[in-house]
């Protein structure tokens, strides 16, 4: 029986061997998921802000819809993106299937709703605090959105991290649109799936431990940015 202890040892050995293949996979994982997170934030924050401050008919329905989209199954997103990017699909002429770009697109679709829905909640709470002040200053809607986004920036970092966490951990979408091609579209999660299917459970688990450490590193980095920034704000 392969044990978790083996996996831990293997994870250390892999990291310290400086295996170039592993490095490539780790870097691609980071590139794909960080790019997807950044773009999903560019899409999700403004939508979240507009819904947060807006009062329009059908708003409740939009809220329910946004919140429901947080539960999009990765496999379904992968299939939808595959059908569009496939050579026989409407966007096939772009030749994007089985590229990192296709993986980024799938992850954006997966996490933009999470970013939008969570930031809507954060910004709405903040807005209810400041609404009167904004009104007394006669701010336009755009100015209000800008002020809210700026004021909530540290909370929004956490929202971004939630999106990143989902992106870097999912396998269903990227394995369909990326194809898990060695040296081209293989990322941590698809490598884990591959090693599991080879029956090499210790190696799969070792890769999982490394993925966990990477996620920890990204979170720690964001946390330190946040702490430095808050400290400077009070100097």
């Amino acid at each position, binding site marked *: 029986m392969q044990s978790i202890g083996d996996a831990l040892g293997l994870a250390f050995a892999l990291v310290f061997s400086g295996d170039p293949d592993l490095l490539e996979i780790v870097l691609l994982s980071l*590139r794909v998921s960080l*790019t997807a997170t950044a773009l999903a934030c560019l899409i999700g924050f403004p939508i979240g802000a507009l819904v947060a401050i807006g009062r329009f008919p059908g708003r409740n329905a939009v809220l329910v819809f946004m919140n429901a989209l947080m539960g999009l199954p990765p496999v379904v997103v992968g299939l939808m993106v595959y059908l569009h990017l496939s*050579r*026989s699909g409407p966007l*096939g002429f772009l030749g994007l*299937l*089985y590229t*990192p770009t296709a993986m980024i697109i799938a992850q954006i679709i997966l996490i933009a709703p999470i970013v939008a829905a969570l930031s809507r909640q954060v910004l709405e709470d903040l807005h209810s605090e400041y609404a009167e002040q904004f009104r007394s200053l006669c701010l336009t809607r755009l100015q209000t959105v800008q002020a809210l986004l700026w004021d909530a920036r540290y909370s929004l970092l956490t929202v971004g991290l939630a999106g990143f966490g989902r992106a870097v951990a999912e396998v269903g979408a990227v394995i369909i649109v990326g194809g898990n091609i060695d040296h081209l579209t293989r990322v941590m999660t698809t490598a884990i799936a591959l090693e599991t299917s080879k029956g090499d459970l210790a190696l799969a688990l070792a890769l999982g431990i490394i993925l966990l450490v990477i996620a920890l590193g990204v979170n720690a980095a964001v946390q330190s940015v946040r702490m430095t920034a808050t400290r400077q704000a009070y100097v």
Partner: protein
Amino acid sequence: MRFKQLIASLLALTVASAASAQDTSIIVQSTTSTANSGLYDYLLPMFQDASGVQVNVVAVGTGQAIRNAQNCDGDVLLVHAKPAEEKFVAEGYGTVRTDLMYNDFVIVGPEADPAGVAGMTDVQAALSKIAESEALFASRGDDSGTHKKELSLWASSGVDPSAASGAWYRETGSGMGATLNAGIGMGAYVMTDRATWISFANKQDYQIRVEGDDDMFNQYGVIQVNPDKCPSVNVEAAQAFADWLVSAEGQSAIAGYKVADQQLFFPNAPTN
């Protein structure tokens, strides 16, 4: 503005990643056994050195590989389900199909051997015995080459396992490796190609129980996707790859691939 720069650099990053895949590369839609057993890791560097063509392998089940190729999402198809392959060519999706190599299927089972099939060489008799004793059997259930083969063997043994689906007949609906993991986890018999089994790392107390029946022959074929149907096909590179595989050089390379001192694939391309 910093914000615009950020967007611009992100877009540049996205586009750059798209461009790198374009050069002289082909996509091979492949069955999983050839990839999971490490054959491509061994073969492709040789071909890439000789030709300069980058070969990108998408390893899925044979059924899905064929569907992906029908959608023009590949240049070469390398699978193991001859009737489905011939249909693929007959419908105009592929130009020509060539036998490439073979190995065989085996049925693996636990040490305890609940159906008492150990050592049998008649696969139909073994399957009947498994069905009679209602010993667990894990099936791929995913329309893959192995799954199609398994269904045809059940049919020829006169047993309809679908009636027992969910009882002793467990359809995992997943790849070979996942089905082996699941089957071994529940103590079920599993039919697998020999290459996947030899290179599989999570065997636990499992051994080959049934082997050696001529009906368990497993033929792999290579097909070039038809550029008339799929203008995106890289004809030259796809041709070069298919030609190399069936050439004397490619065939001896296939024969030279060994795991645990055992040859996994036996080349049998027709010599011209």
